[in-house]
């Protein structure tokens, strides 16, 4: 009977879980919650959890650092997390709450840049429009500040990693 502690990011949120084997079951503990279940490996991509008389299925696939998990029709992205390095998930990066590197929430094509470098912007003001799958998505700033850098041009294809624009608090 050994206990293993693991750190993960689930949809970008750090979560700590402990796993313990107990007879043929597993006991998962997270915060104040306890899950005791038998786990059955169905295939490389499917696990079955038997708990409380119910059978739940989880599908998983590893893609690089991330593991995509689907449970009962809901999808989650899980990745291993090293608390010491403090690596965070996706999304806009803030540094000490004074500046913002704005990213696109999904891959797409820049169809409009609504601001210019040096321009003052207010929280929730639209900075860039990214079109993907015939839908226009307004990318806004989460802080008041000044546009210090525009990394993209109209027509550029962007992904969700590359910063579009940098905004700095005044």
């Amino acid at each position, binding site marked *: 009977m050994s206990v293993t502690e693991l750190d*993960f990011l689930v949809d970008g949120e750090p*979560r700590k879980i402990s*796993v313990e084997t107990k007879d043929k079951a597993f006991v998962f503990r997270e915060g104040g*919650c306890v899950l*005791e279940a038998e786990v059955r490996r169905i295939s490389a991509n499917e696990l079955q959890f038997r708990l409380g008389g119910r059978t739940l299925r989880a*599908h998983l696939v590893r893609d690089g650092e991330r593991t995509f998990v689907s449970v009962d029709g809901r*999808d989650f992205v899980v990745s*291993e997390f090293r608390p010491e390095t403090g690596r965070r998930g996706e999304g806009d990066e803030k540094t000490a709450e004074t500046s913002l590197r704005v990213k696109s929430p999904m891959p797409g094509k820049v169809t409009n840049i609504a601001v210019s470098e040096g321009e003052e912007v207010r929280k929730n003001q639209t900075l860039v429009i990214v079109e993907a799958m*015939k839908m226009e998505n307004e990318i806004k700033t989460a802080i008041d500040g000044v546009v210090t850098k525009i990394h993209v041009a109209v027509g550029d294809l962007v992904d969700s990693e590359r910063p579009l624009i940098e905004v700095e608090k005044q």
Partner: protein
Amino acid sequence: MFGKILIANRGEIAVRVIKACREMGIGSVAVYSEADATSLHVRQADEAVPVGPPPAVESYLDMERILEAARATGAEAIHPGYGFLAENAAFARLCEERGIVFIGPNSTALELVGDKVRARRTMEKAGIPTIPGMTSVATSPEEFRVAARALGYPVMVKASAGGGGKGMRIVCDEAGLVPALESGKREAKSAFGDDSVYLEKYIEEPRHVEFQVLADDRGHTIHLFERECSIQRRHQKILEETPSPALDPELRAEMGETAIRAMRAAGYNNAGTVEFLLGRDRRFYFLEVNARLQVEHPVTELTTGVDLVRRQILIASGADLSIRQEDLLQRGHAVECRIYAEDPKSNFLPSPGRIAFLREPKGPGVRFDSGVFEGFEVPVFYDPILAKLIVWAEDREAACRRMSVALGDCVILGIHTTAGFLRDVVNHPEFRAGRSTTSFIGKYFPSWGTEEGEEDGRRLALAAAAYEALARTAGPTGLPGRRGKEDVATPWTTLGRWRAGGET
């Protein structure tokens, strides 16, 4: 019959048409943009022709390139699918001029039904009910009052220059009329620089009910009953079913006959759909004609037993429509869910990317019309539709249960999809009770991914990831990694479940 058909589309509908061609012994030609070189429709066609760069306007919408592809491969007909060039009268005309059969309505009918104002006028002349509204300009409150009384409350104030909901006001009784007119005019003025408004009958919590029609070139026109398409998000259908829980045999017959009359008035041939708005008072109003094969055509196929794509091709080849109206009947119940590459937890943001894992739902009564495969990179350039999941069962309750199981079996990992969201829609008690209206999603699903089920799921995902991490480190001899005899030999035993603060 044609020897070869070019399919001027991509994704699941192109795959659907290619399949029909193969079963009819007709050669199929796919066209594809640079973004689609490895797409499923390219894989499945007998021939594939590139037609340009990723943006649709330079490829799938480029009429000359499409026609050149048809010429080069010797295709005698073009099936446009839905979207892209499907309802483009100019394209239908070009095809006619070049001697290539356009598998759809004639260009004259297409032009007529494509112009909403002309279509509405044609329908009114033919005695088809449209949403009643003022037809002359009014200025005095008294004129509006008279008009409102004639329409019957509730009525809606609408900006003449309007669009996008600006200037719109709902008026429930005469007392509310003047204040609504005034505020509506102010908003219209500021939005459009024009304060003229008019009144239209307000249809409360309407249903969107459409009728499938088939007409051959000799004018034999039949309807294949209704599809209930009220479950919409941002005015986009996301779930369709048939029969509609709102219709009884009398209303169904009346609406069906009206749909046939509408199509006859438009001089329509081949497959098409007449859309109606249905009020709580069971009155219905013509909205528009969808002059194409609809995304949701499979629910009609499964309940009527008529293969619509096959019929489209037969009609286009000049064959008579051999089905008589009295031979048709609806059997059982069918539901369709549209699986989109969107993230329902983040306001349905598009979610293109690589499908890292795909498990297709299957089984008796389950149909999965898909345009994707495992390893496919869903491009950012086109509609987010990945696949359609359609189920048929003996009755509505059984169909909903089957759909719920099938949605759970539909596993697409690597990108976000709407499958889980749709599962909650199908399992919602109001939906199960058949009370679907166009305001259903806004009312019952203002957001998703914040309920209790979400946190339960997240914890189980975490537990699954932990189990996998252990399996990897433990290697082939560790307990979770191996699926040895001991493991499978254990019947599940009933244990606890997530408990707050629990100790085992």
